[in-house]
C-alpha cells in the first residue's frame, strides 16, 4: 500500500531522513515511535506530499508520489495531480486543524462536496453517519471552538474519512489533548484499525502501539533503528537506543 525506497530528505544541510526503506501492506497498522526530532513526522508528511523528498521514491497504492515516469525521466506533477493523489489519503493532525468558521458537519462535508463534487444530500447523510460513529451525533452543529480537544480530533477523523480514503495518516493525534481525553480518540482509531483501514500512526502512546499495531517502527536520527511486531520491538528490543527510549516513556 505504501512503500518507501531509499527516501532522503534534507532541511537545509540537515539530513532528516537518511535512506529510509520500508513497506506497509494493505490493512496493516504501522506505528512509528521515537524521540522528537527523529524525523517521524516528516516521514509521515512525505507520504501525502506536505513535504517533498530529495531522494529515493515513495509509492502509494502502486503509483509513485509526486512524479510521473516517462521515457526514463521523472516528471514533476502538476499541483492538480498532486491534489488528486492526496484525496485517497486521509490525514489527522496534532492540532486538529479544523476549519473554525464551519460547524462540525460542514467541516466533514466540505471536501467531498467542493473537491469531489459529490451531491450535497448524499454527503450530508454520510457525514452525519460518520459523526455519529465517532460519538458526536449531538454535536454536529457546533463550531470547533465550542468543542473539547478530544471532540475536535474526532471531528477531524470523521472529516478525513468522509473522502473514503484507502490510507489514513495520524500525526501525533493525541499529543495536544488533556490526558483524560486521549482515550476517546484512541478508541475511534482502534475501531478504524479493526475495520481493516490501512494506517500509519506517529504516536507517543506506546500502549496503543502495543495493542493495535501490526508493525512498530522505532526511529531515531533520521533512520529506522528497528521495526517488527510490537511484541518484538516494544517487548524485546534488540538495540540499545530503543531500550533507552522505551525505558523513558514506559
Amino acid at each position, binding site marked *: 500500500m505504501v512503500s518507501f525506497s531509499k527516501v532522503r530528505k534534507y532541511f537545509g544541510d540537515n539530513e532528516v531522513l537518511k535512506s529510509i526503506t520500508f513497506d506497509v501492506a494493505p490493512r496493516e497498522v504501522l506505528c512509528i515511535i521515537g524521540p522528537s526530532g527523529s524525523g517521524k513526522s516528516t516521514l509521515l508528511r512525505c507520504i*501525502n506530499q*506536505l513535504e517533498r523528498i530529495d531522494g529515493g521514491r515513495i509509492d502509494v497504492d502502486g503509483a509513485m508520489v509526486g512524479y510521473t515516469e516517462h521515457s526514463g525521466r521523472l516528471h514533476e506533477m502538476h*499541483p*492538480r495531480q498532486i*491534489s*488528486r493523489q*492526496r*484525496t485517497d*489519503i*486521509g*490525514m489527522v*493532525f496534532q*492540532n486538529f*486543524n*479544523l*476549519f*473554525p*468558521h*464551519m*460547524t462540525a458537519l460542514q467541516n466533514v462535508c*466540505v*471536501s467531498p462536496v*467542493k*473537491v*469531489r463534487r459529490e451531491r450535497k444530500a448524499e454527503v450530508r447523510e454520510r457525514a452525519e453517519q460518520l459523526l455519529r460513529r465517532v460519538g458526536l451525533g449531538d454535536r454536529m452543529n457546533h*463550531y*470547533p*471552538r*465550542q468543542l473539547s480537544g478530544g471532540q475536535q480530533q474526532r471531528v477531524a477523523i470523521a*472529516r*478525513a474519512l468522509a*473522502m473514503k480514503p484507502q490510507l489514513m495518516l495520524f500525526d501525533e493525534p493525541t499529543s495536544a489533548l488533556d490526558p483524560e481525553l486521549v482515550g476517546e480518540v484512541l478508541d475511534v482509531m482502534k475501531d478504524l484499525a479493526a475495520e481493516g483501514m490501512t494506517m500509519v500512526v506517529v504516536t507517543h502512546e506506546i500502549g496503543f502501539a502495543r495493542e493495535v499495531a501490526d508493525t512498530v517502527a522505532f526511529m531515531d536520527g533520521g533512520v529506522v533503528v528497528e521495526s517488527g511486531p510490537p511484541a518484538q520491538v516494544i517487548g524485546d528490543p534488540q538495540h540499545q537506543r530503543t531500550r533507552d527510549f522505551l525505558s523513558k516513556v514506559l
Partner: protein
Amino acid sequence: MSTDVSSGAETKAPPPLHLGEAPTVGLKHPSRWIAVLVVFVLAAMAVHSAITNPNFRWDLVGDYFWAAPIMDGLRVTLTLTVICMAIGLVLGTALALMRLSPNPVLRSAAFGYVWLLRGVPLLVQLIVWYNLSALYPRLSLGIPFGPEFVSFESNHVITAYTAAILGLGLNQAAYMAEIIRAGLQSVDEGQLEAASALGMGRLRTMMTVVLPQAMRVILPPTGNETITMLKQTSLVSVVAVADLLYSTQLIYAKNFQTIPLLIMACIWYLIIISLLSVGQYYLERHFKRGSSRQQHKSLWQHLRRTAALRRDTSALGTEGSTPR
C-alpha cells in the same frame, strides 16, 4: 483580644455580614458627577448657541437639503465611492496575492506598485490622471512594440470623471493590498495543510478556507477605508467633478452662505457614514461566526441583555450612586 474573651458574655460579637444578605453601601463618586455636570453644561452651551445664533441659518440648511444639484452631487459621491472601493478590493486582492506569491518578480512588482501609489499624494495622482493627455496625447491598444489595433485621443477617454475613478481606485488598491495581505497572513498555516491534505487546490483553499477566516481581520480596516474614501471623494473637486462637496461649493460661491451650506453637506456625510457603520457591524458579525465559544447576539439583543443585567444589579439593593 484578651478583653473580648473576658467580657464575652456581656457584649456578644455580631455574626459576620455576608454580601448579598446585608445592605451594601456603594462607593460615592463625586468627581464623576462633576465631570457629568461639566459635559452637560458644555453641551447645553453648544446646542443653545446653535439654536439662537441666527448666523447658522438653519432655514437655508433645510432649503437646500433636498435641492436637485445636491442630490446629483450625492449620487456622484456615492457612485465614486462604490466604484473606487470595488476597484480597490479587486485590484488589492490581486496585489496581495502577488505579494504572497512564490514568484519573486510578481512579489517585487506588487511591492513597487504599493510603494509608488501609497507614496505619492493622492491630490497629485488625481491631477496627473486628469492631465494624462499632456504625457500621452494618444492612447492605443495593440501588441507591445508591435502594430496598433485601435487608438483614441486621451482627452476623449480620460474625462474628469474617469480621472477621478482612476486616481481614487488605483490609490485605494495600494492600501487594500496591504490590508488584505495582513488578513491572509493571519490565517494559521495548519489550515493550509489541512486543506491540502483534503485535496483542495490553491484557489479552492483560498476561497473556502483562507478568505472567510481572513475576513475577520480584513473587514474592520476596510470599513474604515470605505468611510475615508467617501470623504476623500471630495478631493475630486480639483478636477471639477461635481460631487457632493463641489456641488455645495458651487451654490455658496453664488449666494455666499458658506457655513450653512457646508453644515448641510456635513449632515449628508454623517448620515451616509452612520448607515455604512450599521452595515459594517452586521458584516463583521457574519464573519465572526465560530470565533468564540458563545453564540453571537444582534445589536438589539445585546442592548436588551445589557439593560436586563443593569436591572438585576440595581435590584440587588446596592445603594450605588454611579450616574446612569
